[in-house]
Every structure is written in C-alpha cells, then in structure tokens.
C-alpha cells in the first residue's frame, strides 16, 4: 500500500472540504473494496477521508411507506434489522447474502453503491425497488444512479448520505453467488411496486439493468411461467473465468424465475 494522509471528519461538510482540498482523495466507508485495491496498488490516493465517524450517515428509519437507510449503515445492520425484515424482507435477504458475516460487519450500503461494482448486490435493490439515492447535494433516482461499470451519476467529491426504498407490494431477490466470494455472478430483484413491476439484474452486465419484457409479462401474470422463453442477449454480458456470457444470460432467466416464485409466495 502506498502512503497516504488519513482524515476522520465528524461531519459531512468537513468531509467534503477535506476531499476537495486534497490532491487525489478517496472516501473510505467499509473499506472492503478500497483497502484491497490499495494493497494491490491499483489505487494510491493521496488522502483517505474516513466517513465512519459521521453519525448522521448511520441508521435505519421507517417513514410511512419508505425505509430510509443511512449511507454508512453496514450490511449486517440491514440484514439483522427487524424493521427492514418487516417492511421489505427482500432487502434484508439481499443484505444478508453479501460477502460473509465479517464483511457484512464492515461494508456499507453507501460505499457499495458509490463503488458500483458490476457484481455488487445492492444495485439490484436500488433499481429493482425503485429507490432514491440522497447525496450531500441532491436526490438521484435509482434508475439514473448507475451509469456503467464502476461508474455512477455521482460528481467528484459528492457523498451518498442515504437511500430511501419505497415499500413494494411484494419482492424477492435471488442470486447465483460466486462460490468463494459470494458476490453475484447473476442476481435478480423482482418487485411489484406502486409504480409497476420491476425486474433488475446485477452481476450479468457491466451495470445493473431492467428487463422490460419480463416486467410486462409479470404485469398480467405474476408467475414464473409468465416469463418462460423471455431471454436477454448474451452479446453485452460479462464473460470471465467464472461464467461465460451465454451462461450468465441463462442464469438471468433462472434467477428471475426463482425470485418470482419466492415473491409470489
């Protein structure tokens, strides 16, 4: 790891000020992507601005039909929250399947979505549940947040402060985990929301995407049979030693059906 300066501000304003005043700063949240990247010298920031001392970024609130999760809230805080479990069980399930128990005790929702790893689980929840991302500058619709592989709508130095999830009528997330690291080789969130059906896929492509054809089919018949025969083209999907693109395309259908069956109860 290259040397860096370390800062631990206690307010969002101080964090943003430290970030903009440094040559090449990075925000640190749970650190489970950034620190490994720094160990490999793939990242060498001049300054680390640790967000974990900012209390206003932490916590879970249920407000009416919304669950609002602070950006610094850890995966296990979401997974083990009775409030989240009662309001949006699919979200608690998703958080409880990220990495392993120790990783879930460090990794945060804000850190995960700001990093926008193509195999992260949370993007499927942000898009699949129609969430809204709150930052220190604005609100960003979940559908507009992820813009590519490791790319988001966030501007340089912008801090995710919270994510609000509208409570769906029903939803479920199913993934095919990498056997060693548990990341989503393919993960699918299926939800019936107040604004319609949503089917969001993570892991398969450079960035999370929706499948309109499946959403239309589910609108008239919410069952796994309804999406029989609906496929996604393998052309633009990820391909690596763990899963070729055509296999990922196949897994999209399998995981979507499993999620529909689970959501349908």
């Amino acid at each position: 790891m290259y040397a860096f300066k370390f800062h631990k501000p206690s307010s969002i304003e101080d964090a943003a000020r430290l970030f903009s005043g440094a040559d090449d700063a990075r925000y640190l949240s749970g650190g489970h992507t950034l620190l490994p990247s720094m160990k490999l010298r793939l990242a060498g920031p001049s300054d680390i601005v640790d967000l974990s001392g900012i209390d206003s970024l932490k916590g879970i609130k249920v407000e009416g039909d919304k669950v609002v999760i602070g950006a610094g809230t850890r995966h296990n805080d979401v997974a083990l929250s009775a409030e989240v479990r009662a309001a949006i069980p699919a979200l608690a399930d998703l958080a409880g399947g990220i990495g392993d128990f120790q990783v879930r005790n460090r990794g945060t929702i804000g850190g995960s979505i700001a990093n926008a790893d193509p195999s992260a689980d949370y993007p499927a929840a942000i898009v699949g549940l129609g969430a809204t991302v709150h930052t220190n500058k604005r609100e960003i619709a979940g559908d507009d947040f992820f813009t590519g592989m490791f790319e988001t709508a966030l501007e340089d130095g912008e801090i995710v402060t919270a994510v609000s999830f509208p409570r769906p009528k029903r939803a479920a997330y199913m993934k095919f985990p990498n056997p060693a690291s548990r990341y989503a080789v393919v993960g699918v969130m299926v939800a019936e929301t107040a604004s319609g059906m949503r089917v969001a896929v993570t892991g398969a492509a450079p960035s999370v995407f929706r499948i309109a054809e499946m959403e239309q089919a589910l609108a008239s018949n919410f069952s796994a049979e309804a999406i029989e025969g609906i496929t996604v083209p393998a052309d633009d999907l990820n391909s690596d030693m763990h899963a070729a693109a055509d296999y990922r395309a196949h897994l999209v259908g399998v995981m979507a059906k499993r999620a529909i069956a689970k959501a349908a109860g």
Partner: protein
Amino acid sequence: MPTVSMTVNGRKMSGECEERTLLVNFLRENLGLTGTHVGCDTSQCGACCVHINGDSVKSCTMLALQAEGAEITTIEGVADGDNLHAIQEAFRDNHGLQCGFCTPGMIMSALDLLKHNANPSEAEIRHHLEGNLCRCTGYHNIVKSIQAAAAAMGGTP
C-alpha cells in the same frame, strides 16, 4: 507517525504506526498479539478475525487508525487465564483443528455466531463460516465443535 489507542482484551494500549498500517499488523507487530493470523490478506480466509466493539471483522481489511478508541477482543482475550473458553474446549474435544492456522479466526467467528444465535442449526453454522477457510479439516469437526460449544454454553456465549 500518528499514535493510535484502543482497548485490547480489556487493557488500554497505544502505539505509533503509519497511516497505512493494517489493524492486524498493528496487533501482531506493535502489540505482540500474534494469535491473530494473516492468511490470505484479501479478506477471504478469516484467519485475521477479531471482534471490534463486539462485532467480528477481518482485521486485514481495516486500518489500525480506524480502530482508534475501539474495544477489541483477539483470540488471546477469549480464555479466562488458564481456563479455556467453552468454545476452545469444544474445538479441542472434537478435533476441530489440524494445523491450527485458521483456528483463532474460526473461534472468533463462531463466538459472534453464538452471540446472535445461541442454538444454531448445522446449516446456519456452515452459512456463518462462509468467511472462514480451513484447508485441513473439511469443516466437519469445526461444525461439530461449534455445536458442542453451543450445547455446553447453554445459550450464554
């Protein structure tokens, strides 16, 4: 160099380290607590598992400076003097280790499991151990050890 202070196994400790020093290296090299192991150094294997403010984490993927002011428990803090903790006894009784390299992490991880779930099923134990790799035992006796510890502890980790 900055100074970092933390409470480790009930004792206040502090030391100087570089900003880039990982918590596991601070524990091992500055404090001499070498029971916490470095296995993969990539947050996969769990040999470096310690408790921070009561939660099990991988100390290879955390900066020492991030632990400023924290309460830390390492494997050295689990036994009560010469009396092994029930979970340590259970690993011994059930042959829950062979080379022993993963054992400190296994025990710290299992302790956190039993705190959340005093009577876990075999499936729950295996799910919980996803973040702890053992290359000797095939896990079977580790699972047995944790089941025995849960029974011996009777719901009080």
